């Protein structure tokens, strides 16, 4: 597969605080996150001439965010979507720059995902009229993400013997990582027993199998490798990207089995092919944890273990800090906060820079203790290559491979 390996970089990252009650607009949060990413990159407002964002009718569009910061745009695009959009938009930003439409693109996501427009489907979403394809599921009390995804995991348990205890280790690992993250909404470490002992939401999912609805805004800045050399931070190179790759019958994916197969099955050859590396070369993963089991399904589909062995993989210690290939080292959507995928790319950028914002006093200078006790360090030593596995739903996903 032809790609643009190492021709583009992520040069700036930024975010607001992760909270459960921002008490401000998505416009204010987006402006702050974009500004923070521009400053992180060492750029000026006039250096940014492209902007992209994604939303579900729940956010502020680029034509308001850019002028707030004095940015005049040569290109912008507001995209409808949620999870799996981050990686897709990074690829589209590269394409826009490659086409000569602009030079440097800020990508943001801003959402009051807890206080205004809840992703879980409660509040305003629960009252929306049901029409079209929604008629195939919603009238049966199947509306939220958990309700939409649960039969996929249950079938995996049936086919492969995967257990609740195994995937609980995803929450355990991510809570361990969040305990080293000052930004995380949930910093307390939990046990397997805490997860499987929490109340049922939709069987086979417990409360602690589900991620955290959160208010926040996040931003990434993409530019060419040449321009990246003049930026403040060590550039992080994009090796490969796949955006919104789908299974057949995306309209009603239950029609096309095995339903335990997710979109990564189709995305992996695209993204690994561009990057010229394989799963064994990846030091850190960011596998989207809308739920504990989504992380597991993607890791096995991308070949980090054999299909069906995801339960063993995620419960083996591999995905924890100190393990061979830690996943979601900032705590992910289960613990840090829900960002529709942006925070996992931001974290991997920081991992590759060596400047993860943990509790190490000189973290910003890249000085870390590598002591993974609570309240200490979460930097992975000598991380060279990271991979993001973006999830929208079982039949739809994106992927991104970066290197330092």
């Amino acid at each position: 597969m032809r790609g643009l390996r190492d021709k583009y970089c992520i040069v700036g990252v930024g975010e607001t605080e992760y909270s459960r009650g921002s008490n401000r607009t998505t416009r204010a949060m987006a402006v702050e996150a974009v500004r923070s990413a521009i400053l992180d990159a060492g750029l000026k407002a006039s250096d940014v001439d492209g902007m992209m964002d994604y939303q579900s009718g729940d956010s502020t569009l680029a034509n308001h965010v850019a002028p707030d910061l004095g940015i005049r745009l040569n290109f912008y695009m507001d995209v409808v979507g949620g999870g799996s959009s981050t990686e897709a938009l990074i690829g589209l930003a590269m394409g826009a720059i490659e086409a000569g439409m602009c030079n440097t693109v800020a990508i943001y996501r801003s959402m009051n995902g807890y206080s205004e427009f809840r992703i879980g489907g409660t509040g305003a979403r629960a009252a929306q009229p049901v029409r079209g394809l929604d008629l195939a599921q919603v009238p049966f009390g199947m509306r939220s993400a958990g309700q939409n995804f649960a039969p996929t995991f249950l079938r995996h348990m049936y086919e492969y013997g995967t257990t609740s205890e195994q995937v609980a280790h995803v929450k355990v690992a991510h809570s361990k990582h969040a305990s080293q993250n000052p930004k995380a909404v949930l910093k307390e470490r939990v046990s397997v027993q805490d997860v499987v002992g929490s109340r049922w939401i939709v069987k086979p999912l417990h409360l602690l199998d589900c991620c955290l609805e959160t208010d926040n805004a996040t931003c990434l800045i993409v530019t060419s490798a040449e321009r990246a050399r003049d930026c403040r931070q060590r550039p992080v190179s994009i090796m490969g990207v796949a955006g919104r790759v789908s299974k057949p019958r995306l309209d009603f994916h239950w029609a096309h089995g095995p339903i335990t197969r997710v979109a990564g099955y189709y995305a992996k050859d695209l993204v690994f092919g561009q990057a010229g590396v394989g799963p064994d070369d990846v030091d850190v993963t960011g596998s989207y944890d809308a739920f504990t089991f989504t992380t597991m399904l993607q890791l096995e589909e991308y070949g980090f273990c054999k299909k069906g062995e995801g339960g063993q993989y995620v419960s083996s210690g591999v995905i924890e800090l100190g393990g061979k290939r830690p996943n979601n080292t900032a705590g992910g959507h289960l613990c840090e906060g829900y960002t529709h995928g942006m925070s996992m790319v931001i974290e991997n950028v920081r991992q590759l820079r060596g400047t993860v914002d943990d509790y190490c006093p000189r973290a910003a200078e890249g000085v870390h203790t590598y002591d993974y006790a609570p309240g200490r360090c979460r930097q992975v030593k000598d991380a060279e290559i990271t991979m993001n596995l973006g999830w929208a739903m079982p039949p739809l996903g994106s992927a991104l491979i970066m290197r330092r």
Partner: protein
Amino acid sequence: MPQPVQYRGMSLIVPDNDTEWKEFYAHARAHRLVVRKCAACGLLRYPPTHACPWCMALGWTWQAVSGRGTIYSYEIVHHAIQPGFKELTPYPVVLVELDEQRGTPTPDESLRIIANLLKPDLTPEAEEKVAIGKRVGVLFQDLADHMALPQFTLTDERPQGRVWRLP
């Protein structure tokens, strides 16, 4: 245009120009489960869509199916999102694989349909009776003069394959 159907706090909207669902629900109201049959290749498809996903032909007819099938996967909702479902918890949602066209046109494909698993009196089936592999048949929940929801109920047929439920 018919009024939206109010069901458990939801407005179900099937306007006159809904070329996918309007006739599907009219058949359901007559207690027939129908799917679309491609006029060119003859393959059945659900949900109702405008073109054939296998041969791209536009022509189709409605084809009645038996309404018999096997539970392929399921979930039990304990925490309802829609307010009108709170009184039903815990309620099962089942993914039913219909008997027609199983493993066709590829081994990975089948006619599968989402619904609730109900007792014959239309209340949710008890959680401990829900399992992958159990046999089910369609029954219809009348909602309005022009609309009924196809639902499923357990039958006394022998299970198909391994029977398994979440321990």
